[in-house]
């Protein structure tokens, strides 16, 4: 508790990263390093996901190519590259081509502001292992994510096909709803850390990682990050059972590979953000951080902690995928708008009020906790005073059977409304004429069915 109180009391922003020693070639090395790291991680992530899901389903998973099947994703990538690159005729050519590029481009942007380690010695220069950092770095991550969605939306639209369009419309709705909850869960971290710079947020977690004091925000972030990257149980934009492949249905070869790449890089991105904002970033876990005067928090050691935490979140993604089923669309929207967002709003207000009281009123720890307990008791008491909502009176009679395709006419009728006969409906006799050479049984059967229906 004392550790928490020290952390909570931090009003002045922690030290920022110092990039003054960087020469142009160091910046170049970092930039290229990030891209190589991401591409290799994606290859590994695909293998990792297939292997872990396989273990969960009690089967071996990829085990043929290379040791432990490690080269499987390389083989898959080569297969994708060598496939025929098709452009569907109904496509809007330029946007169809640009959409996957937008996705990949935006996904590569995020890691620029993720601190992988504090100052390290890079070819004789002392430099933070982070491409850049600025006072609004976390907002920059959100901006990059929101540009990345354009890839999905435009890809679905430009395909000129029904399922991709439905997928992209779903994706728009999904990302807008879940980005709100995600942004709001991050706000409480900003309030506590007193900064929006990634490095400063990491430095603000020296005594306690934010996922403990801000547990509700962390849970909201975990849920919304899964929604943000279209992973199960929120993979509605590419729901195989409903939309074939969603927005990427009409894509093949390299263009499909780009979408695929972007999806996995985005998983790495949101995991890195979760690590940085809630899990202490590159900082060593508690008992290790005490060893030898904080030795494990300096030099190249932090890269290890960052990697372990990153892959912990990647494992959660796979675990969730192996466990949960896809949401129904209406449940998904209801969950986002009626549960996550109000909850996130209440949490922000609570955090801000507590932080404001600490900042502007001179209260001791005991007084503050006592006040919080009193508010909680009052809230629970108030809940008992609110009368329970009356049950809606049931309409008399059984619910009317509702048939969206009644008589082959795909328009939902109003209650009591009689529909005109469908113009596309053919008389049974005509049908037998069309089906040339058919015997009479077809028409007879159809007539019998018509009579059965009423």
């Amino acid at each position, binding site marked *: 508790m004392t550790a928490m109180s020290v952390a909570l009391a931090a009003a002045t922003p922690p030290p920022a990263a110092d990039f003054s020693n960087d020469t142009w070639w160091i910046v170049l090395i970092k930039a290229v390093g990030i891209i190589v790291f991401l591409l290799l991680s994606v290859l590994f992530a695909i293998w990792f996901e297939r292997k872990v899901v396989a273990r969960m389903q009690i089967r071996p998973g990829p085990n043929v190519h290379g040791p432990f099947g490690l080269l499987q994703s390389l083989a898959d990538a080569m297969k994708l590259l060598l496939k025929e690159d098709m452009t569907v005729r109904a496509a*809007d050519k330029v*946007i169809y081509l640009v959409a996957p590029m937008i996705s990949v481009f935006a996904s590569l942007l995020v890691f620029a502001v993720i601190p992988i380690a504090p100052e390290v010695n890079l070819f004789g220069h002392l430099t933070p292992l982070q491409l850049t950092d*600025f*006072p*609004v770095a976390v*907002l*920059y991550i*959100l*901006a990059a*994510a*929101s*540009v990345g*969605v*354009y890839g999905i*939306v*435009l890809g*679905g*639209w430009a395909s000129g096909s029904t399922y991709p*369009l439905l997928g*992209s*419309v779903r994706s*728009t*709705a999904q*990302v*807008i709803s879940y*980005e709100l909850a995600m942004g709001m869960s991050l706000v409480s971290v900003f309030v506590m850390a007193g900064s*929006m710079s990634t490095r400063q947020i990491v430095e603000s977690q020296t005594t306690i990682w934010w996922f403990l004091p801000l547990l509700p925000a962390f849970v909201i972030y975990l849920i919304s990050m899964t929604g943000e990257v279209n992973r199960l149980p929120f993979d509605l934009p590419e729901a195989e059972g409903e939309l074939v492949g969603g927005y990427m249905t009409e894509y093949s070869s390299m263009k499909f590979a780009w979408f695929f790449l972007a999806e996995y890089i985005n998983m790495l991105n949101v995991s890195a953000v979760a690590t940085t904002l809630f899990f202490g970033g590159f900082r060593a876990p508690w008992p290790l951080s005490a060893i030898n005067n904080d030795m494990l928090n300096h030099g190249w050691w932090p890269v290890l902690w960052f990697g372990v935490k990153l892959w912990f979140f990647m494992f959660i993604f796979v675990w969730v995928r192996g466990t949960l089923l896809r949401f129904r669309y209406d449940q998904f929207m209801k969950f986002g708008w009626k549960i996550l967002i109000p909850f996130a709003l209440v949490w922000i207000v609570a955090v801000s009020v507590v932080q404001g009281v600490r900042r502007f009123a001179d209260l001791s720890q005991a007084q503050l906790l006592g006040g919080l307990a009193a508010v909680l008791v009052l809230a629970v008491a108030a809940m008992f005073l609110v009368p329970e909502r009356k049950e809606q009176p*049931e*309409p008399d009679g059984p*619910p*009317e059977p*509702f048939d969206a*395709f009644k*008589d*082959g006419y*795909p328009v939902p009728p*109003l*209650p009591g409304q009689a529909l005109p006969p*469908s113009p*596309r*409906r*053919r*008389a*049974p006799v*005509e*049908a*037998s004429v*069309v*089906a040339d*050479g*058919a*015997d009479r*049984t*077809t*028409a007879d*059967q*159809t007539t019998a*069915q*018509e009579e059965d*229906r009423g």
Partner: protein
Amino acid sequence: MTLSLGALLPAATSLATTGHTSTAEGVLFWVLAPIMVIAALGLLFARKAVHAAMGVVVVMISLAIIYVAQEAPFLGVVQVIVYTGAVMMLFLFVLMLVGVDASDSLVETITGQRWIGLLLGAGLAAVLIGVVVAATAPTPQGLATANEVGNPQAVAGVVFGQHVFALEVVGTLLVTAAVGAIVLTHRPRLTRLIGQKERADARVAAIAEGQVVTPLPAPGVYARSNAMDVPALGPDGAPLEQSVPRVLRIRGQERDISEVHAEVDERTRDRLTGADERRAGLTGIDEERTR
């Protein structure tokens, strides 16, 4: 967009005279400015509504980059999140759903719409010019002074200090608009909502009436035809009526199993056209073939 662009950029350069414009900043401007002008023209002249929307997105993102270069990172990033990420995305959403294109009618649905629009546009222009003049007319303080406490903190000080009333008014206006939209598009429920459990129970109860709980069999006789209008075959070789979509059945567009065989197998078709008392079904045809 073009309007605000034209108004802002000269102001930005004149403000920058208090500091200094580095070569990199100049290069950035001269690279981005033509792109923005072309994209803005694209908004006016693009045939497809989605292309026009893309033009706006390009202008917005380039503008954000220029904001960041002008040491206003908060404004630049928030512009991308709010306008590009949310507002334009909603525009696209509507464009894709409704499918607006050049063939749509341009008749005014609200009388005097054009004049109201012009008036409001003039109002916006007046506000923008006022802001730019207010920022330039007295001696500009320079970015170093403005960002002394850090850019986001300085913006917060201005927004929640000097302009808190305007902010609240705009907030109220937006909430009113949102509530109005919800009220106007609200549709009362005509029938009672049937829950997932009720549906499941009803399906199970319908087993007694001969309905199936499992998904229906897919149409098509594999290796012969996978067409929607051909019924699948059951384990006993009899065609399954339920496998053909109901709409096709009702329209009478369902094909008989014997037709598929007839089409594929020349020999069988000859027999079909010759025979007059032939029964449909695979078993019958198989018998004929074995003969």
